[in-house]
């Protein structure tokens, strides 16, 4: 069991990962992330990249919804803004990849700030509805502006890093995963700072937060801006990954996907965003694998496929019933078990 973890300096107390076991596991994680592409085939690499992009975006949404309590259904729209910015810059300006991603994040951030303004007057479900407007406005702009390619969208040339085209999943993995890791670490660190604590205070009771001296205007907009920056960078990575951006690539259902990811994963925790994104991306594929193992022929596949969708929905409902705080709470419970063993409580 875990004992004797008393800290002697404030710095040590603030550390994200404080025990040696955690350091060992983190080292193993880093090693497996580095070694994974050399052992995985194209399918698993594709899924890994997709999961990483979803983790980045879900982390952004968790900052906004999980930590600041501002429900948003505009995440896909901000991803779209980032993706289109990257696509346009790559096509017309040919600027370096990292600059494009940064620009994508900034454009999405500006969009987020705009959409966040109603948050000062409306709360909860009503804010969620007003953020849906972001989806429709973004779709309208993308579909009707010739600069963004209209309804047929834009074809993005592959990202060019050090003279090499990142045109396979193996190559682009080395762009997507480090960027995602940086973003996740950034988000985790955010909640050790005053800004992060202000977000949490706003979520818990925003009137009290204002009384305590946290300026709601500033911090709510900051939360929107930060979350949409994350979405913008994730959208930019999405553009480089899929190489085609159309107005229909970022529908409202994608925002719902991310909201579901953080609810199932656990709102208000970075681990929750990671687990939720992995769950939402991998479970449908995993169910396909399970169906593939069943000893049935091609015609049965036809009938089982819709059943798979039902099972996925039931899994989401099941997780929410049995663990309303999400997968992160299940993780923490397992961890607590091992920390306290051989004691129970």
């Amino acid at each position, binding site marked *: 069991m875990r004992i004797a973890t008393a800290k002697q300096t404030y710095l040590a107390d603030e550390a994200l990962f404080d025990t040696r076991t955690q350091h060992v596991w983190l080292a193993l994680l880093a090693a497996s992330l580095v070694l994974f592409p050399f*052992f995985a085939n*194209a399918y698993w690499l594709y*899924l890994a990249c997709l999961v990483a992009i979803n983790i980045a975006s879900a982390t952004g949404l968790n900052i906004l919804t999980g930590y600041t309590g501002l429900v948003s259904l505009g995440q896909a729209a901000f991803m779209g803004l980032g993706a289109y910015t990257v696509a346009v810059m790559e096509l017309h300006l040919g600027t370096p990849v990292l600059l494009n991603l940064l620009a994508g994040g900034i454009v999405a951030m500006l969009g987020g700030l705009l959409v966040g303004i109603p948050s000062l007057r409306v709360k909860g479900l009503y804010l969620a509805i007003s953020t849906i407007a972001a989806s429709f406005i973004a779709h309208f702009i993308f579909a009707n502006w010739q600069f963004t390619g209209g309804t*047929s969208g834009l074809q993005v040339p592959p990202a060019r890093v050090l003279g090499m085209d990142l045109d396979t999943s193996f190559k682009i993995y080395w762009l997507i995963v480090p960027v995602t890791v940086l973003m996740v670490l950034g988000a985790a660190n955010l909640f050790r700072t005053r800004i992060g604590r202000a977000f949490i205070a706003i979520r818990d009771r925003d009137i009290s937060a204002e009384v305590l001296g946290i300026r709601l205007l500033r911090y709510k907009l900051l939360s929107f801006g930060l979350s949409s920056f994350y979405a913008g960078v994730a959208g930019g990575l999405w553009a480089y990954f*899929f190489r085609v951006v159309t107005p229909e690539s970022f529908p409202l259902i994608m925002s719902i996907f991310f909201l579901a990811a953080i609810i199932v994963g656990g709102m208000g925790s970075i681990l929750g965003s990671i687990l939720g994104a992995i769950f939402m991306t991998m479970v449908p594929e995993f169910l396909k694998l399970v169906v593939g193992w069943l000893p049935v022929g*091609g*015609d049965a596949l036809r009938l089982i496929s819709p059943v798979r969708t039902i099972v996925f929905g039931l899994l989401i409902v099941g997780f929410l019933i049995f663990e309303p705080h999400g997968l992160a709470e299940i993780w923490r419970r397992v*961890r607590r078990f091992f920390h306290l063993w051989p004691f129970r409580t």
Partner: protein
Amino acid sequence: MKRIRIGSGLSRLLAPLGLAAALAAAPAAQAAEDLVLGGSIPLSGVFAFAGQGIHAGITDYVKIINDQGGIKGRKLRYVPEDTAYKVDASVAAFKKITSQNKVNFYYGDSTGFSKTINAELNRTGDILMTGASFATELNDPAKYPAQFMLGPDYTEMFGILLRYIAKEQPGAKVAFVYSDTEFGRDPIASSRAVAEKLGLKVATEIMTPPGSVDVSTEVIKLRRADPDFTIFHGYVLAPIPEFVGQGKRMGLKTRYMGTFWTMDNSTVMQMGEDAEGFMGVMPYRYYYDQAADAPMLKKIREMRPQYQSTGYMQGFLAAMLFSEVAKRTLDAGKDLTAANMKAALDGIKDFDTGGLIGVPITIKGNSIPVGRIYRADVKQKQMVPASDWIVLK
């Protein structure tokens, strides 16, 4: 004091993933001789009615060709994956199937997927692809050299409809009603030009949201324009029944027409009485067609006693053309690369589809620009031919 510490951390999650990856990395052992037809098929989701038909069509033709001994002694193997009509699931299915099999042919479920996977297709250069999409953009052999479509593209479909209208009623007024999606907007701009060239007047263009239920304002707009013909595009069924029903009640005298995906017998007949006279363009014969020169249709009816949709016909044709391309490429002693297979496809002239399409077909560019106007006959509950087979030059 001895401390037992079980670590925690994010790494615990990814270790099993890495293990699974290592296990999956070894490709499945398969006979090197098999020709593989991979498919991203929408077996569930919004497009499931078509996907189920496409799946059945491909399966049946693959069975027919294998029963005949395969293609030059090599069996054709069909490897489908369900995508629920989502682009990222389609791409995942593509990657999964291509990493586990040496794929020669692929069927894609949507325009979005066809565009997304194009770069990968051109990079690997060993797969010939077709799909459910008839998007005008894909009919470009320079930009999409490894892809083709199983019929006329949407602009060509509009062209066939407009030519029919121009012949029936020269100088008629036409209205375009389309959905606000890439699918819906695809042929509108170019068809405007075609209509003008044929001397037809485009009375109005009405765009509706894709999932719209209430179209009363649009029907009023249509009534104000008072067209002679109204062409729907970008829908499967809804909101066409609303348009037709409300239009009839308002006394609209216009005749209604649709493009490929609105023309399946089962969807049109769902309109009930209002379906009478609904017309449209269809490149294939319908399941129940008793034409004498259609041995394949007879065979299909033997294999499947119940009605099969137009999606089935499309899947069947896909497998048929793939088999023909494989045969021609192997006959010429060439390797099965995308370039060689596309060249073989381009060389297909006056090919007999066994009656699936009423005339022998020739591939032009990336499409097969042939079709026939059909009309709904509610009494017979069937779509019946209203014109001869039209081949666009």
